[in-house]
């Protein structure tokens, strides 16, 4: 509640407090009211795995999971994630540094070429397989429709999604 009260007092251009759960850790920092979540992640927190692409919510390179669901961090005001849970690609690996099964699936399927779309693509696939352990091809295609890849032609990414689902079911 204290957070709520202080949120309401800030005026134009003044920094304001922001507290949220980022990759499993509570973070607390100051942000500008017009700051985008993408910029907070990359420029204030140094988490450059989240990519800046089209900036209008069409390419999906900036995808993060907000309370487990994929969203475009380029369309999200940082202030609006106060008290919520954000997962970026940096938060996916295990505590021992081991790759997440979805990351392993992408590597093993050769689903990465230039790598720019990969963080967003992996998070979209993670959200899918978390919710739906046995997706159909249509489920996969729908889940990644908001992530553009200009290298792979998608086939290996779709293969990776199925492999990821199999790994997650094990």
């Amino acid at each position, binding site marked *: 509640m204290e957070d709520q009260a202080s949120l309401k007092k800030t005026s134009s251009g003044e920094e304001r407090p922001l507290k949220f759960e980022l990759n499993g850790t509570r973070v607390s920092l100051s942000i500008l*009211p017009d700051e985008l979540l993408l910029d907070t992640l990359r420029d204030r927190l140094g988490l450059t795995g989240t990519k800046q692409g089209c900036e209008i*919510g069409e390419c*999906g390179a900036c995808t993060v999971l907000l309370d487990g669901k994929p969203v475009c961090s*380029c369309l999200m005001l940082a202030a609006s994630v*106060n008290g919520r849970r954000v997962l970026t690609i940096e938060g996916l690996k295990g505590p021992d540094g081991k790759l997440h099964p979805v990351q392993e699936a992408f590597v093993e399927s050769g689903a990465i070429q230039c790598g720019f779309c990969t963080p967003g693509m992996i998070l979209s696939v993670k959200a899918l397989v978390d919710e739906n352990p046995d997706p159909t091809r249509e489920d996969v295609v729908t889940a990644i429709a*908001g992530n553009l890849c200009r290298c792979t032609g998608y086939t290996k990414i779709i293969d990776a999604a199925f492999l990821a689902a199999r790994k997650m079911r094990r």
Partner: protein
Amino acid sequence: MSSFDYFQAASVEEAAQALKDGEGKILAGGTDLVVQLKQGKVHPRRVIDITRIPPLRRLKEENGQIVLGAGVTFQELITSSLIQQRSFPLVQMASQMGSLQIRNVATLGGNMANGSPSADSLVPLLAFGTTVTLQSTRGSRETALSALLEAPPGRVSLPPDEIIVEIRFPRPAPNARSIFLKLGRRNALNIARLSLCAILTLDSNRRIATAAVAVGSASPHPVRVSTAEKLLNGSPMSPQLLEEGVEEISRSVARSLGKRASAPYKSLAIRGLAREALEYCFNLEEQRRQAS
């Protein structure tokens, strides 16, 4: 992006108070607003975040009406069993809108307030006969969605201090047949080039009791095609009526297209959409089977 203040409203009343001077903008999902802020198309003094107001996220059936909070997201429509059972065209519409990233945050209220000629949700909502509840510090009022759309393209008749709170329409009859169709340049993240929603209910003599047809992206705002509805209402379903219905929808849309550059394409394309929709709603093969 010009600088603005950010306010997270905990209730509709708080949001209305923050919007009172007309210098604020409502952030419902942000998928349109944040782009407009970035492009310098809007310069609000404050952005009022309404994403944490529980009553705006309601989705229920009440006294024979489907009631949707203005903050219901497109993805919530798709996954709602109530909407799947009672108003499937909204599911068809929502699943063709944007990407999952967009559908997870974009809201019905935001789509409405943005006032785009191709606003996907307005086409089925118009066909369902939607009433909208608006609130400001001056009080609450209800208006027909069609009245809200009496405005230039990209705008709606919404004073700058009013918030869209609730969207409601009568629960469609159990025997209603309805469909939403959309044409675009590609399958995903597609801005509608043309969209259509048709809802038909039958009386006990298998005549059309009520017909609702709405079309989007063919006029400054989505509209009901009342001439086609009049033609269909009260008539027994037949292959000939289907042809006349397709003809009337096409004629009406061609008129509203005027001389815009896309008119030659759209006036042909509407025929295909109208035929597909009416063929589905008439379901003549099933009618024949039942009659024999």
